[in-house]
């Protein structure tokens, strides 16, 4: 990594960022888009293929009705117009992950277009305009043979076509302006919203780590909000909410450095690396020429108005409405709710509350202690090795006075380390609060005796000095005491 980067604040003081997001969602239909092969993740390579998804000569695709239904429902949920008539098109390119040397996609006739979503972020509303949501098929999966696993130094590549033909919806925004320094957060909030939306529609399992929701993040910079759009880069391989934010912040800093030194941004595809930087991929200078043309093997899709209305009636409570309902039930402020939504913690908190915790306690654990651990591990909250029920159990131990907050964090350590249920961790690690006043008193007396100066101050009425003694007692008892009780004992003795 040799990119020069401008300081983020300086970059934003000098330039106005413009975003564009392309999100691919794999649909969770039982079978593939154009054939009856099972649509499931992983499995033994090349065990779910047939003449159609292998692109064998003479095979003919037939459209999966459920995939069309899902596409229409997604379009409706994104406030799009549903095309009364549209076609599939061939996108021609040569790459070994496509058996047919073309991808069956949609070109100038997407099934859904002209939609919008409103996002709430830090008390501001950002309207994201949706240009289109179109249907297409996924490609096979390449594995590059070589020391690094990267394509550049691979001697050859291996292809598994199990994923080839999986139905996809690609959702494309119009250029998103007016987000300023919040651009990376808006992008993250948008993808988090789409994830929630797909879950509520039940059309995809949207597991970013498995690639069933993938984001390509476009960004360009311009001198001011009234200047024409600058040249953009498209960062691919951004496979977590955190990465979206990080990759865009990186590109803002990198492009700002290029532009500030009088350079020109190269319009290109870039790859995001989890280590925290992007590298150039295919240059887009030679505008891709996919020679799209209508797919002659498929007839047009013409959803009747009646069918569209029937599907509209199946739309569930959409995320914004659900979030508002949960906010009312839980008594969260707008800011608290937004933090929860943006952290992707709505489901986790709902499940934790269902398991018996109070909403406030559930929010506290997921958004502070657990968010910190997910952050450190570079993973999503939902990927932590702790379930909402276990979080509720930890809180129950706190409520019962078995452990204090500090010990509860050690219980979480244990659960995350695979030591079992919270109660088992408490037992195996011996993490019980010392509630025996005899043991506490002895520890308090010892600390007072060892710190006569501090004790004198407290006797003189400087009660805030008690903190030092409480800390010392807690340290002696390895944190296994109720700090409030320790304070009481100290003040009793030094009254």
């Amino acid at each position: 990594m040799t990119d020069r980067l401008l300081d983020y604040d300086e970059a934003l003081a000098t330039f106005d960022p413009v975003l564009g997001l392309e999100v691919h969602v794999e649909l969770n239909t039982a079978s593939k888009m154009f054939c009856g092969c099972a649509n499931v993740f992983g499995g033994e390579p090349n065990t779910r293929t047939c003449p159609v998804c292998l692109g064998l000569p003479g095979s003919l695709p037939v459209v999966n009705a459920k995939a069309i239904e899902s596409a229409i429902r997604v379009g409706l949920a994104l406030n799009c117009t549903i095309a009364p008539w549209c076609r599939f098109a061939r996108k021609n390119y040569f790459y070994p992950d496509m058996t047919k040397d073309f991808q069956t996609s949609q070109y100038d006739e997407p099934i859904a277009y002209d939609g919008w979503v409103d996002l709430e972020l830090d008390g501001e509303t950002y309207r994201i305009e949706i240009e289109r949501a179109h249907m297409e098929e996924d490609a096979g999966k390449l594995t590059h043979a070589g020391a690094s696993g990267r394509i550049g130094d691979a001697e050859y590549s291996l292809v598994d076509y199990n994923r080839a033909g999986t139905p996809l919806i690609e959702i494309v925004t119009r250029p998103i302006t007016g987000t300023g320094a919040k651009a990376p957060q808006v992008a993250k909030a948008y993808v988090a919203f789409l994830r929630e939306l797909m879950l509520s529609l039940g059309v995809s399992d949207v597991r970013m780590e498995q690639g069933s929701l993938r984001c390509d993040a476009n960004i360009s910079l311009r001198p001011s909000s009234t200047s024409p759009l600058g040249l953009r880069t498209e960062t691919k391989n951004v496979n977590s909410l955190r990465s979206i934010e990080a990759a865009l912040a990186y590109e803002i800093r990198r492009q700002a450095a290029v532009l500030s030194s009088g350079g020109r941004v190269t319009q290109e595809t870039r790859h995001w690396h989890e280590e925290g930087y992007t590298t150039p991929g295919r240059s887009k200078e030679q505008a891709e020429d996919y020679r799209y043309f209508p797919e002659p093997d498929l007839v047009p899709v013409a959803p009747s108005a009646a069918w569209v209305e029937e599907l509209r009636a199946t739309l569930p409570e959409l995320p914004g409405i659900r979030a508002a309902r949960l906010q009312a039930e839980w008594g969260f402020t707008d800011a608290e709710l937004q933090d929860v939504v943006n952290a992707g913690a709505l489901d986790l908190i709902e499940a934790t509350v269902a398991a018996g915790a109070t909403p406030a306690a559930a929010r506290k654990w997921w958004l502070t202690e657990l968010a910190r651990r997910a952050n450190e591990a570079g993973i999503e909250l939902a990927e932590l090795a702790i379930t909402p029920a276990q979080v509720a159990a930890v809180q129950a131990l706190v409520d019962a006075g078995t452990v204090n907050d500090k010990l509860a964090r050690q219980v979480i350590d244990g659960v995350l380390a695979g030591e079992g249920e919270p109660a088992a961790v408490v037992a195996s690690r011996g993490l019980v609060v010392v509630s025996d006043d005899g043991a506490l008193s002895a520890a308090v007396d010892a600390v007072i005796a060892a710190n006569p100066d501090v004790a004198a101050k407290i006797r003189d009425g400087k009660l805030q000095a008690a903190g030092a003694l409480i800390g010392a007692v807690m340290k002696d008892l390895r944190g296994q005491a109720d700090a409030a009780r320790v304070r009481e004992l100290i003040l009793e003795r030094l009254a």
Partner: protein
Amino acid sequence: MAITAAEVARLGELARIRLTAEETETLAPQLEVILAAVATVSEVAGDDIPPTSHALDLVNVFRADEVQPSLPAEAVLAAAPATEDGRFRVPRILGEEQ
């Protein structure tokens, strides 16, 4: 519609067909004749004839979302020039920097 040798070269590149300078020169006028022949269709079609991409006057030909048996992996891979670990083995992919 004049087709230049450079356009033929570009088409060859997109189709991954290696063409010599001599071939692009020969093909350019030939493609021009083909395009002109196809273009005569639009002279026949009046404004009342919408462009079509399909011979059949059908829409919404769908299948139910039901899983059908796939081919056995051995049969699928038997057709491949090279395989490894149950996967198709393909030559080094060029033209990508990553």
